[in-house]
C-alpha cells in the first residue's frame, strides 16, 4: 500500500524542497536598460580640505555599481580585456601596485578609483578615458573595490584562475584606515 504512494510522496517532497530553494534565492535585479551619464564624478584625491566645508559628498552611482554582482563580474572580465591584470596581476601587483592590500596611493573610494582609471596617474598608470566607456570604467572601479575586500557581498565565491587563495568574498576586509578619504602614501610610483 504505502509503497504505491512512495514515488508520489517523493515527488511532492522534491517539489517542496525545490520551491524552498527558489524562495531562498534573492535574485539580483538587473537593469538592462540603464547607462550611466557620461560625466564622471567629482573626485577628491586628498583628505585635506582647508577651511570650513569638508569632504565632497559621494557620487550616488558608485554605490549602485559596487553593490551589483553583475557590474562587479563584468568589471572582472574587463580587468583582463584591458590588460589591467598584466600590471596588477590578480590584485597582488607587478608592474603596477597591489590592489588587494590596504595601501591606496590615490584613494580607495570608488570615485577615486574611477578617477585613477579614467585620468591615469603620473607615475605609470595610463589614462583609459576614451578607450573604455564610462560604464566600463565604473565597472572596473567596482571590481577593483571588490579586490580590495571592500564589497564582499557582491563578489564571486570562486576564482577563475590558478590561485590557491580564498575567494574574494572571503578575503579579510582591509583595515578601516584605508576606507573613506584618500590616503596618499609617499610619492613613489
Amino acid at each position, binding site marked *: 500500500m504505502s509503497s504505491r504512494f512512495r514515488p508520489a510522496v517523493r515527488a511532492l517532497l522534491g517539489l517542496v524542497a525545490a520551491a524552498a530553494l527558489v524562495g531562498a534565492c534573492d535574485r539580483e535585479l538587473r537593469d538592462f536598460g540603464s547607462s550611466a551619464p557620461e560625466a564622471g564624478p567629482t573626485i577628491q584625491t586628498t583628505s585635506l580640505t582647508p577651511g570650513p566645508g569638508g569632504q565632497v559628498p559621494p557620487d550616488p552611482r558608485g554605490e549602485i555599481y559596487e553593490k551589483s554582482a553583475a557590474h562587479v563580474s563584468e568589471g572582472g572580465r574587463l580587468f583582463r580585456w584591458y*590588460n589591467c591584470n*598584466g600590471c596588477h596581476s590578480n590584485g597582488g*601587483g*607587478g*608592474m603596477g601596485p*597591489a590592489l588587494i592590500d590596504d595601501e591606496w596611493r590615490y584613494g580607495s573610494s570608488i570615485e577615486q578609483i574611477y578617477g585613477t582609471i579614467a585620468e591615469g596617474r603620473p607615475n*605609470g598608470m595610463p589614462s583609459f578615458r576614451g578607450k573604455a566607456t564610462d560604464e566600463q570604467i565604473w565597472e572596473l572601479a567596482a571590481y577593483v573595490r571588490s579586490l580590495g575586500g571592500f564589497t564582499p557581498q557582491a563578489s564571486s565565491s570562486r576564482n577563475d584562475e590558478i590561485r590557491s*587563495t580564498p575567494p574574494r568574498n572571503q*578575503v579579510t576586509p582591509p583595515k578601516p584606515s584605508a576606507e573613506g578619504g584618500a590616503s596618499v602614501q609617499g610619492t613613489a*610610483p
Partner: protein
Amino acid sequence: MAEVERRRTWWWIAAAVVLAALIILFLLKQTHYSPPAAKMTTPAAYNPGQPTADDGQWVMPAKDYASTRFSGLNEINVSNVANLRPEFTFETGINKGHEEAPIVVGGTMFIVTPYPNKVFALDLTKPGAPLKWSFEPKPAPASQGVACCDVVNRGAVYWDGKIIITTLDGVVIALDANSGAQAWRTQLGDINRGETITMAPLVVKGKVLVGDSGGETGVRGWLTALDAGSGKIAWRAYNTGPDKDVLIGPDFHPFYKMDQGTDLGVKTWPPDAWKTGGGTVWGWISYDPELNLIYYGTGNPGPWNADQRPGDNKWTSGIFARDPDTGQAKWFYQLSPHDIHDYDGINEIVLLDLPIGGKVRKVLVRPERNGYVYVIDRATGQVLSADPFAYVNSSKGVDLKTGELQVNPDKVTQVGKTVRDICPSANGAKDWNPSAWSPRTGLLYLPHVNMCMDWQSAEVSYIAGTPYVGAEVVMYGGAGGNRGAFTAWDPVKRRAAWEIKEDLPIWSGALATAGDVVFYGTLDGWFKAVDARNGQLLWQFKTGSGIIGQPVAYKGPDGREYIAIMSGVGGWAGAIVSGNLDPQDPTAALGFVNATQDLKKRTNTGGTLYVFALPPRR
C-alpha cells in the same frame, strides 16, 4: 772606540739597505701587476691606451669586451680576504632595485641609479670618496608604468672622456666624465609603445650599442648603434620583420638549416604578429676585435601565450653575431625557437679560447635561461656542446646536428591547460645577472636560481603601452629546497666543479679575481667571498638591503685594491619588496612573488654603495 763606531756604521748601512730593499719590493708589488699564469687566453681587454694586463680600472660593467668580469688584482686573496672591511659607503636615496655595476676610471667612480637614473661621480682621491658631481636626467615618470620588472638600470659605460648612460624612458645620454655636463642626448624608445631601456650600453669602435626593453609589452626588439661623439644614429637592426630591417644581407650565414632562409622574421609569424613580437635586447653585448663581431642575445617572443604566434618566431630567443661597423648580421642561432616558457636569450656571452677536441677554439660560452651552458664556435655559430647546469624538464637536450632544442611535449604551454611543474621557471635557470670567468681556475662562476613553475595561458589582446603577456604563472623553489645556487662550471669538462646552495634565488652578478676569490650577493643582503677553487666561504658582510648588483674590483689612487657592490633589493626577484607587492596573490609580478613570499620579512628597500678593502698597511 773607532772599532765600535765602525761596527755601528756598518749596522746602520745594513739596516738602510734592508729597508730600501723592502721599500722597493713594496713599491714593485704596488705598481707592477704580473699577469697570472693564464691557462687560456681571452680576447684583448678594453684598455684605452694602456698595455698592462690589468690597469685596475673598471670601465664597463662586464670589465672587458670578452665579458669575463675577471680582475687581475690579487692584493685581496684567499689568505687575507677574511680581513676585508667596509671602507666607505654612499647612499643613492632611491628605493628601487640596484642592478648596476659601479664604473671606475682613474680616480673617479661613476654610478647610475635605477629610475630616476641619477648619475653620481665620486672622487676616490679624497678620504671617504666625496661627491664630485651628480646629474639628473629627469626621465618621464610615466615610464615606470611600462617597465616590466622593477625600474632597474644595469650600469654606465666609459668611453673617451665620456660617461654614457641609458634612462628608463628610452634615452641615451653622454656626459663629460670630468664635469658631468651633458654632451649629447638621443631619444630612442617610445614609452607609449611600451619601449623602455634598462641595459648598460657598450661602446665598440666609437659606436654606442643600445637595445630596447619591453618584451612583456609587445614591442618590436632592436639594437641601435649611435655615434659616440655626436649621439647620431648610425644603424638600427630589428630582431623581427623583413631581412632589410633585421640587417640581413649577403654576409649572413647561419650554421643551422633552421635559421636559414629569407625574411624568416616575417614568415615564422602569423600575419603582422612580428610587429608586436618582442625579441628585445636588454642584456649583454660582447665584442671580438679579431673577428670584428659583436654578439648579443634577443629576448622572448610576445605574447607569452604561444598559441597566438605559431611558428619559430625569428629572431627571438637567440644569439646574433653582427659587424659593428655596418650592423650587418653574420650569423644567428635560435636557442629557444617558438619559445613557450619566456626563456629570453639575453644573458651574458663570455668570449673564450678553449681547448676543445684537442685544439684551441674561439668559442662563446652562454649560460642560458633554458638551463643549458652553450659552448658555441663564435666564428660560425656552431654549437659544440650544450649541457644542463641546473635541473631541466622543459626540454630534453639540444640536438647538436640540427641545433634544435628538444622541447618536452609534457611541458608545452597551451590555452585551456594548466601545465604544472615546469623547470626552469620563466626567469630561467639563470637570468640576466652575469657570471664571471677566471682564467686561473678555468671555471665560469654562475649565480643562478633553482625554481619551477605552473603556467596557464590565456588569450590577450594587444593594446599599445600595456602588458602583452597572456599567461598566469606561479613560481616556487625546485627540488632540494634551495631557491638559489652558485655554480662553478667547467666548460671544457662540461660539468660543475662545485656548487653552493643558497636559500633565496641569486639575482646578483659575480666577480672573479686573480686572488682566487669570487664574490656574489644574496637577496637578503649578504655579500660573500668564496674560494674560487672549492667554493669555501671565506668572508661575508651583511649590507643594508638585498643585493642584486654586480660586484667590481679596482685599484684605488692609493694603490690598494677595492671591491665595490651596490646593495638595494628589487628587480624581478625582489619586486615584492621594491614594489610592495602582495604575496596573497601568487601570480603577482608574473608569478615570481610566490617564490619569494618571505622576502619582505628578510630585507627592506634602500640603495647603497659599499666599498671594501683590506686594512691599510702600517
